[in-house]
């Protein structure tokens, strides 16, 4: 199964831009969903017809942060269990451990997203998950 839909949850416009450009460079056929905080991400997931196979999630965001999103996301019944990769500028143990507690979280990347990271997520993580 090839990667067709990715969601980026980040409140920073520049980072959203970088991620989008990188994903498009990786594979221009991929649909990129964007959300600026956890709340919006939940809404996007709810409304969108295609579900992302991969979600890049930031932690520090207004309204609903990454951890709160994870808690809410895992409570959604019948969710397709997308692979979630934390994409943050924080490498603090506290934040990494906080995210690792959620089973949907498969990896922890440092911002900004690069091609190598994308390929890793695409090939290894998704294959393992499927």
């Amino acid at each position, binding site marked *: 199964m090839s990667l067709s839909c990715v969601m980026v949850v980040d409140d920073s416009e520049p980072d959203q831009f970088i991620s989008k*450009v990188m994903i498009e460079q990786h594979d221009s056929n991929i649909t990129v969903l964007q959300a600026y905080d956890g709340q919006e991400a939940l809404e996007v997931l709810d409304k969108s017809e295609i579900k992302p196979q991969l979600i890049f999630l930031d932690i520090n965001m207004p309204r609903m942060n990454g951890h709160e999103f994870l808690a809410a996301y895992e409570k959604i019944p019948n969710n397709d269990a997308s692979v979630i990769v934390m994409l943050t*500028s924080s490498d*603090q143990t506290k934040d990494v451990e906080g995210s690792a507690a959620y089973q949907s979280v498969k990896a922890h990347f440092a911002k900004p997203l690069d091609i190598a990271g994308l390929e890793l997520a695409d090939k290894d993580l998704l294959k393992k998950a499927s």
Partner: protein
Amino acid sequence: MAISKIVRTLFFLCLGLGVVTVVSVYFMSRNIGEQSVVQQKNFELLLLSQDIERASALLTREAISYTLTGEQDHLDAYTKGLATSRSREPAIGRMVQLGASAAGLDLLRGMKTEADAIVLWEQALMASVSGASSVAAAQSFFQGDHALSKASVADLSAEFRLLLAERGAAGLSPNALIAGSVSLVLFFVLFAVAALFFCWKKMIPLPLKDAVQTLVSLASGNVVEGIAHVDDKSEIGDIARASVVFRESLQSNTKLSADLERFDESLELRVEKRTKDLSAANDELEEFAYRTSHDLRSPINSSSRLLQMVQKSLEGGNSDQALVGLNHAQTSLNKLETLISDMLVLAEAKGKGEDSEVVDFETLTKAALDKMMHMEFYDRLDVQTDFAFTGDLFSKQSRINMVLENLISNAIKYQDPEKDRPYIKISTKLVDGWVYMEVEDNGLGVPKEQQKKLFSMFQRFHPKVSFGSGLGLYLLKKCADVVGGEIGYLDNPASGGGSIFRLTIPMDLAEAA
């Protein structure tokens, strides 16, 4: 030497003196008794010797009378007297009984012998009266031999008396005299010592004992009630007065140590509170350092990547893409600049020392509004003011101004674009001795679930419209702390919602602290 030992020694001395006195008085009285017996004997011996002499004289007189007168009466008297006295054997027997000395007995026997010789002489003369001339007989009585015999009796008697007198004098023993005077002296000494002892004991050892007890009690830390002998002029009085001084110092020491203990306790509490505050501040600082490093690094990394992307775009001839990237890099760096400037403001707000002064809300508000006039969408706002508090608030003006400016600026930024008549209302009032400064708007407001974290650091609440560093309200909380007040959020009860931020300030910062 201990006072008690002296007292005991003196007591035994008195006892010893008493015993010696009693013994000496006993011996003296016994001696005097003996003396009286001796004197009695001597007296009786004297009487006996005198009796012999007198009897001899009486007989002689009767014999003379008979020879001169020839009367039978005299002869009869003589004969009768001779039978009872002249021989004197009973007298000598009595003297032996009385224990007369050998010399005395010899003298008495001599007297008897002489008297017996006289009797023979007189009898011869009286016999001659019946035959010869009485005149011649009478003459014979006065002749030398008879007189000589009589004189020898008298001489012996005198010698005996002398002997008796000597013996009487010898009987008065000098030991008895010494014993008498010694016991008298001892008695007086005893009396004097005993009297002195009791006076002295009342004057020195008893008060001294009191004084010593007082001092010992004070030394063991007891505050002694009522110290005796304070008015005494003696050294005991000095000790008692010194004790009073010691007691006062003990009392003040006790008070001091109690104070010290209380101070200790309050110090501990204060240290505990400080430690807690410090530890909280430290935690906050750590959090701040972590968040700051994160938020500082993030835009730099992003910009760096964006610039790489721009370079690639330009190389690929895609200038539109490059412009978008540059625009994002600009946004990122602007965010960084905002963060840094907010951090500087915060550092200043936390650390800056400032004197309290009278705060003029009206002037501050006017200046703040003037400053914000050029902000985007400012013109849409209906600005209202209501300064009900008109008293003199004494506080740190720059902190209050910082709160005011930030709240006004937030109200401008977070307007609700869907509302027709957006407004901002700045008001003050006095409630229970606290000054309330409120900034009210009908803007976006803060959702209930976010309100708890509102004043924590690095929190942003408005998606997409959030331009801030997330430090603004945290900074305001720090300012509120500095002026001894609080900052809080209330939902605007007016229809359509909005927010009310309220800064509560004590009337006088010095009093509140």
